[in-house]
């Protein structure tokens, strides 16, 4: 293993956190979406992270299997029931005049978004530090 593999780990973190931000943005954008191709209101989604060994398919020593990157294992749909609002005028209203809206928790999503941005920045800091280490090492060869 070397510094380039460490850079791989950082970029896996960047990719995972970016995916998380995308999904969160989708949730926020669809907070009021009552109609989807699948039918019914939009359902909130969230990412599930899992550790991954660095450089899959590569021969790696045992100790290195313990230092790993991350990936989005799956994107799961929030099972919580839709929020029913009484809006008889709404085209999607049911017989009783209720409209099913996505269950939306703005506080939770904003907290999650803040954490995702922070995580992204931390991985960016790793990439920067490692890039600096690589450059300094190459400078030694220049005398």
């Amino acid at each position, binding site marked *: *293993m*070397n*510094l*380039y*593999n460490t850079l791989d780990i950082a970029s896996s973190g960047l990719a995972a956190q970016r995916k998380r931000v995308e999904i969160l943005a989708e949730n926020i954008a669809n907070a009021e979406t009552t109609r989807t191709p699948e039918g019914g209101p939009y359902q909130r989604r969230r990412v599930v992270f899992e550790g991954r060994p660095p450089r899959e398919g*590569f021969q*790696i020593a045992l100790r*290195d299997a313990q230092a790993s990157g991350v990936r989005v294992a799956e994107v799961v749909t929030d099972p919580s029931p839709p929020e029913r609002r009484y809006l008889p005028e709404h085209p999607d209203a049911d017989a009783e005049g209720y409209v099913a809206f996505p269950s939306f928790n703005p506080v939770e999503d904003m907290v999650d978004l803040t954490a995702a941005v922070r995580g992204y920045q931390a991985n960016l800091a790793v990439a920067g530090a490692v890039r600096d280490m*690589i450059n300094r*090492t*190459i400078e*030694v*060869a220049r005398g």
Partner: protein
Amino acid sequence: MDVARFSRITAPELIAESKSKAASAAAPAQDFKGLLAEGMAKLDALESEASSQVQALMQGEPVELHRVVLAGEEASLAFDMMLSVRNKVVEAYQEVMRMQV
């Protein structure tokens, strides 16, 4: 100055010493050639080690960058060393040739 020390050196000892000096001076002619060959072999080993490390790095094998740099520097130092030795030898040779016997 301790004059007594000199008086202790007897003639046979001096002769023996100068004889052994002459012998050791004759031997290096052989040794130097061996030394040079050994040095060249070591240099060759270092060069091939350095280039195999560079190749490993290029192929994405997990070699540490600073190790590759160090191997390269070591090979280049060995090369400089050989060059210095060679220059010294040539210099010494020319010096000898200029000597008026």
